[in-house]
């Protein structure tokens, strides 16, 4: 009769899974509800949404809970979930000028068009660790604020890039590449040389730390094509999502989603570049993640300038995805004794060859034969 492979593997795996479930879900502490996670760990949820490339706060929150707070593992859970979902539609092209800002700062200009709106940020707060016992202190009992009418400029301030264009200080790339169909990195693998749309999409769902690390490497690393740039603008806000109505053919807004956006202003200094102007790099990602979009905007302009002549494009496209790098790293934990045995055999063969007097630096008779 045939061979039966029922040995310890399956039982051990099941036991390990059970251990996780018991410790995680039944720890002697209150259960973390999805609402708790979305409300209390907003930035973690946003980071998972961005790196997973799927906008839905409850899904990201559930993934974070299941992953015991590991954002990379959570992003993996969300992406695997997304793989099983049909694509209902491609949205109409979203114009980021429609962003309703929740936060907007313009570091390059003191008084740009529209407000310097700090919004919800801890940028200017001392990093003092707070360790409240029990419930946090109740908020100041300030009266319900008077509703104020929001002006259009306050809602959707003109972007800083527009001001630079008005001053004729920026290279205008609009229309240079026609209106090419965007590269869909979830369907068609992107490898260099790739369209910019592939690079932007890759960065938008890259692991935040990988993007920041790649950028920072240009500051202190031994190489790098990225310049330190001036930040034109950072925004966080809501964008409308529109699709075509199947019966009328007109666009319908089906909801809003939050994004973070950045513009990086590059001082052009190349031999074949227009030194009288600036160029601009662009960053945009799902959720609120300023670190990521600032790195992305820097890397976008660097990639347009230097990506092809150096390793940058390959680095961006192939090394920044958290699932790729994390997955490959973790696979090292799998058994490798077949491949390791093959390596050991070659080491032994080299020694045997050396013992037989045919070791390294074989003098070929051909060399000596020569006249």
């Amino acid at each position, binding site marked *: 009769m045939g061979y039966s492979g029922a040995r310890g593997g399956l039982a051990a*795996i099941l036991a390990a899974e059970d251990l996780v479930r018991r410790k995680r879900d039944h720890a002697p502490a209150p259960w973390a509800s999805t609402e708790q996670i979305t409300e209390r760990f907003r930035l973690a949820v946003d980071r998972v949404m961005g790196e997973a490339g799927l906008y839905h706060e409850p899904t990201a929150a559930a993934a974070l809970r299941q992953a015991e707070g590991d954002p990379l593992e959570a992003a993996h859970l969300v992406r695997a979930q997304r793989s099983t979902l049909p694509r209902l539609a491609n949205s109409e092209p979203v114009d980021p000028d429609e962003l309703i800002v929740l936060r907007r700062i313009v570091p390059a200009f003191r008084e740009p068009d529209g407000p310097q709106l700090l919004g919800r940020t801890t940028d200017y707060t001392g990093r003092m660790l707070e360790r409240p016992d029990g419930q946090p202190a109740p908020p100041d009992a300030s009266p319900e604020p008077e509703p104020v009418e929001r002006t259009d400029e306050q809602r959707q301030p003109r972007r800083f890039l527009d001001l630079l264009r008005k001053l004729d200080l920026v290279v205008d790339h609009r229309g240079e590449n026609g209106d090419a169909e965007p590269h869909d990195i979830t369907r068609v693998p992107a490898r260099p040389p790739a369209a910019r749309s592939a690079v932007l999409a890759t960065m938008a769902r890259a692991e935040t730390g990988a993007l920041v690390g790649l950028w920072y490497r240009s500051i202190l690393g031994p190489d790098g094509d990225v310049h330190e740039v001036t930040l034109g603008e950072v925004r966080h806000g809501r964008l409308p999502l529109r699709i075509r109505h199947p019966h009328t053919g007109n666009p319908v807004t089906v909801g809003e989603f939050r994004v973070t956006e950045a513009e990086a202003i590059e001082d052009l200094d190349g031999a*074949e570049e227009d030194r009288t102007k600036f160029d601009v790099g662009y960053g945009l990602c799902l959720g609120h993640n300023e670190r990521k979009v600032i790195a992305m905007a820097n890397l976008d302009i660097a990639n347009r300038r230097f990506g092809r002549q150096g390793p940058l494009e390959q680095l961006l496209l192939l090394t920044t995805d958290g699932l790729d790098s994390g997955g490959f790293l973790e696979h090292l934990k799998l058994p490798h004794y077949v491949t390791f045995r093959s390596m050991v055999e070659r080491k032994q063969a080299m020694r045997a060859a050396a013992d037989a007097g045919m070791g390294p630096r074989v003098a070929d008779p051909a060399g000596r034969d020569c006249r």
Partner: protein
Amino acid sequence: MTVTTTDASAIRALLADVDEARGVRQEILDEGAKREVRRAVLSAVCVPGYQVPFGSREMPVARGWGSGGLQVTLGVIGPADTVKVIDQGDDAGVNATNLRRMIGGTTDCAETTDTRDATVIQSRHRIPEEALGERHIMVYQVPVPEPLRGVEKSVVECGRMHAEADYSKMWVSLYEDIVRNGLITASSGYPVEVDGRYVMATSPVPRWDVPRLHQAEHLNLYGAGREKRIYAIPPHTDVHPLTFADVPFEVEYAPDSYCKLCGSDDVFLVEGGPNGGYVCSDTEWCTRVREGDADIVAHRKRAPLGQLPDPRRRLVGTEVEEEVHGTVERTADTPEWALRVSEVGKVHGSGGAAAVPGTGPESGSAVSPSTGAIVAAWDVDFDVAPGEALGLIGESGSGKSTVLSCVVGDVPATSGTVRLGAVDAGRTDVLALPDEQRRKLRIDSMAVVYQDPAAGLNLDITAGGNIAERLTAAGWRGYHRIRRRAAELLDRVEVPLSRMDDPVRTFSGGMRQRVQIAKALATEPAVLLLDEPTTGLDASVAAGVIDLLRGLLAERDIAAVVVSHDFAVIEALTDRTLVMQLGRVVERGLTDQLFHDPHHPYTQRLVAAARR
């Protein structure tokens, strides 16, 4: 308004009906994705060994944990199939167990651990010892599908190498391996040439399993999820491990080893634990041998026992005499020149030809007044005949090296044509050829010696290996023949043969330049381009290199172009010379005439400077 309570909601009831009618099953790969996998598999089968990109989905297993193999399996499997999953040859390995659960839980196929019952076998790192037949599909989990990764880090360049079947870097790495270590040290995942075309990574399985890919009865599918590639070896396909014709491929072997459980000595064995000894990596086979349920005789016949390592055969392999030289047959309609350059120009920056007016010697500037572009060369004409050497002289920035770069193909020319007598009897403008064909010309039709040896050599490999690169690119596959040819060439350029197996990085500048010259001459190209071949060398070393070049040019029927700012180099090597200034040819003539009776003010200045 009147509403029903949510408890009795019509909408919710409707939803429940819909779900019941549809039947919900947990899927990990939707139908669209499966179709895509099947399309990629079909392409892969049509082009054996070629890595077909596919839109790899995120799976519930980590990338690197078999997500590619899993997608292939889910893509090709059907209800009539029986699946076996192994990891390291072991059905009970944790990865195998994990994947088997996932496949079983989401498809209707049957499961087995018996290879004879299986139709689809998903595997990490092994091919079963049991015979495989046409009913079997092997699906391999591939962590790194790119076999060239070890020799080339740029994926763009790897893609080019595959497209052009330019695998000389791989061959050189094998050559260097033998030189340094006395044998090929590549272990598992040994590279193979599939169907005489693509070089492919073998998953990684041990070398022991590689011979079983050649002319296999079964279909092999390879899935790399992270790198988003699928490739295949269809049944009855030639699969040859990459090795020189006279250096045998070797499988894993340890003297006197056998499985301490079943006693087999003709299987792939892995270390048997802290007490030493070995055990079968294929646990199914091991169990069946012990139970007497295995055809041991047939197995022994397919075991690669003829490819066990044997140091005595390694370096005395049989001679191969299949090599060809890049010699050119001259026919009646072959032009008298070997290289003809017509109206070649190069403009850096915008404007093209429109940038040219207002530049050149009369204007005293190479910068276009209209566009700001730099006109590095314009309207340069010359031809060179076999056995003739032509000089291109001028100060730095005169455009002479630019012209050479345009001819070579290192930079695209803005205008003009370049013809080679050996290519289509000189009728084809090589500037108009696709890059791939231009690069091929550099294997045996046109060689360059750069000022900087690092531009023409890989400093990290040996002198012999650098020459081997050119020879293997030209199709040489005999290790000993390659070494003999390399030795001849190095001897000719007076590099001591004792240095043949040293990395070029350890060589002096003059010696590096000699190696570069030897490499350039390796395939006897009809045209040799020398770009400042002695600049940067000490005077006495430079003199030696010039003498060497003069001797080589005199004894061969090569057409040479020598670019130099140094009149002594030009005078020593060439019969005729062009003088360039600010991108234009300002004077041409016999070299001794230009030196003794220069007409153009610029040439007179150059000569005067040279005589100081």
